[in-house]
């Protein structure tokens, strides 16, 4: 499936100029600072912003053309907004069923029972909307969008109005969504950690323009990636969770590489998931130190060394299964150890976060 958008919009000093052709599979993240035009682009895709002369095509369907405009209610798009947008005069159940009832029977792929179970909202169905917490509301909104069995799911910063705790509660649902519901997702966000957790592909936007569109792997392989602006460089390792914990830690396997991660016991074994590792939490050693509190020692090979900020450098290394792991160390340390491309070292990982 692919989405192509061509739109030009000039309004109150804001200039949006977009011409993109996007393969849609899994989660595509539209990333950029506030005011860069990502929400406007999302609204053009949805048909909420009617920009003259714009072209929007989804797969074989022309949503907006020269003489054609398909209104939102016939585009079969699921929309989830930043702030709570449940219809206040309806219960959670009636909100969930509002779209379901308006979806022709032959299009219905998801039903109330399974969606309620997937999002863990079965117990909330008969509550009025004002008696739901922020996180519950956002889950009901997601469920409501899914129950229209949409061809495309547009999420406009669905987590940014939630506190950290609630965010943590919803993230797992979001990361399972695309796979389980089988719907391509476009996620608008300005938070790098959401991209790293959820996205398969990233579209970078700046000042109303698309800077580049690449896979998450490519986006994380550039030392100058905009994703690194806040917290510094980050690596994402993909793998699966092993069985049985040991003192609160569970094994995580990525090919022949194994790490110990803090994970709840109720997470199913074998589920594929991601680890998020900050480059500054990774140290490098020429030998494998035995008597040290750091649990995760990974044999890696240095691929390249790039100067970073403040007399530090970013060392790109490859794990034994070929995944990229970044380490941020000082120039001095790099010179002392004689680090260079091709040198095998041990990456000592001080902390990892299991995401999605």
């Amino acid at each position: 499936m692919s989405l192509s958008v061509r739109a030009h919009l000039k309004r109150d000093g804001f200039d949006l100029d977009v011409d993109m052709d996007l393969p849609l599979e899994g989660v595509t993240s539209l990333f950029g600072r506030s005011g860069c035009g990502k929400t406007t682009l999302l609204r053009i895709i949805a048909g909420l912003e009617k920009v003259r002369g714009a072209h929007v095509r989804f797969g074989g369907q022309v949503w907006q053309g020269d003489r054609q405009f398909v209104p939102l209610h016939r585009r079969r798009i699921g929309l989830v907004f930043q702030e709570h947008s449940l219809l206040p005069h309806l219960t959670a159940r009636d909100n969930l069923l509002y779209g379901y009832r308006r979806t022709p029977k032959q299009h219905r792929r998801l039903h109330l029972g399974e969606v309620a179970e997937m999002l863990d909202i079965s117990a909330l169905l008969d509550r009025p909307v004002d008696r739901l917490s922020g996180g519950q509301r956002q889950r009901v909104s997601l469920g409501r969008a899914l129950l229209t069995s949409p061809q495309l799911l547009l999420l406009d910063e669905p987590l940014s109005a939630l506190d950290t705790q609630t965010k943590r509660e919803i993230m797992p649902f979001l990361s399972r969504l695309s796979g389980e519901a089988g719907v391509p997702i476009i996620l608008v966000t300005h938070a790098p950690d959401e991209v790293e957790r959820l996205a398969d592909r990233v579209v970078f936007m700046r000042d109303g323009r698309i800077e580049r569109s690449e896979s998450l792997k490519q986006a994380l392989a550039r030392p100058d990636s905009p994703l690194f602006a806040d917290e510094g460089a980050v690596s994402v390792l993909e793998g699966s969770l092993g069985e049985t914990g040991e003192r609160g830690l569970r094994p995580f396997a990525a090919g022949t590489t194994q790490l110990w991660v803090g994970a709840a016991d109720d997470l199913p074994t074998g589920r594929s998931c991601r680890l998020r590792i900050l480059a500054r939490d990774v140290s490098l050693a020429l030998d494998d130190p035995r008597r040290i509190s750091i649990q995760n020692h990974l044999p890696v090979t240095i691929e390249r060394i790039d100067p970073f900020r403040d007399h530090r450098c970013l060392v790109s290394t490859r794990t034994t299964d070929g995944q990229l792991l970044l380490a941020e160390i000082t120039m001095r340390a790099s010179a002392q150890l004689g680090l260079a491309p091709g040198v095998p070292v041990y990456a000592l990982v001080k902390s990892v976060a299991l995401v999605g």
Partner: protein
Amino acid sequence: MTGLGPEDWQAIEVTFRLCLYTTLILLVIATPIAWWLSSGRSAGRVAVQAVVALPLVLPPTVLGFYLLIVLGPRGFVGGTLEAMGLHHLAFTFEGILIASVIYSMPFAVQPLTEAFNNLGRRPVEVASSLGANAVDRFLTVILPLTRGGFVVAATLTFAHTLGEFGVILMLGGSIPGETKVLSVLIYDHTEAMNYDSAHRLSLMLLIFSFITLFIVYSMTRRFRVARV
């Protein structure tokens, strides 16, 4: 027992018919106007807003005078009707109905505009994304969520039409059963030094208007609470 004569009853009947029709017509006309006014700001909208509010500041005689000219036998509308073999609209019930609709317009448009502004566009966008078409959205989202605005608009329109005098006197004259409404009849009674009758009708209007406004204001309070 009420002491009302047949003339009084006739005026009451004309008045309530006028109020009812005006209210129904205005709800239909004012809803799209208010929706459009609440959906953004532009020079066109400001102009329409000003035109709609004109009856609030114009002397009723001014409005009545222009309507008399336009709807009368030599006016644009009245003349056209005459040319088509119909009757012009001055001194008719239809004439004062048109006048009432214009004169009470702000009392329907303003509460609805405010209700739509408070509603915002988000619930409507949500409903569209869930597959609801325009009529469906109006009936299942807009109407239930702005019902307070509709009640206020209807009540104020009704009450304001009840209190009309100048416009009707200018355009409708005082034809029993056709254009003689309560306010005009009270004027006639007073002119004829018929103070008892004037008193009875005045008191009736006073009490009725008070009760109506009391209901409206208690409802706006309730709806405001319910919105939060």
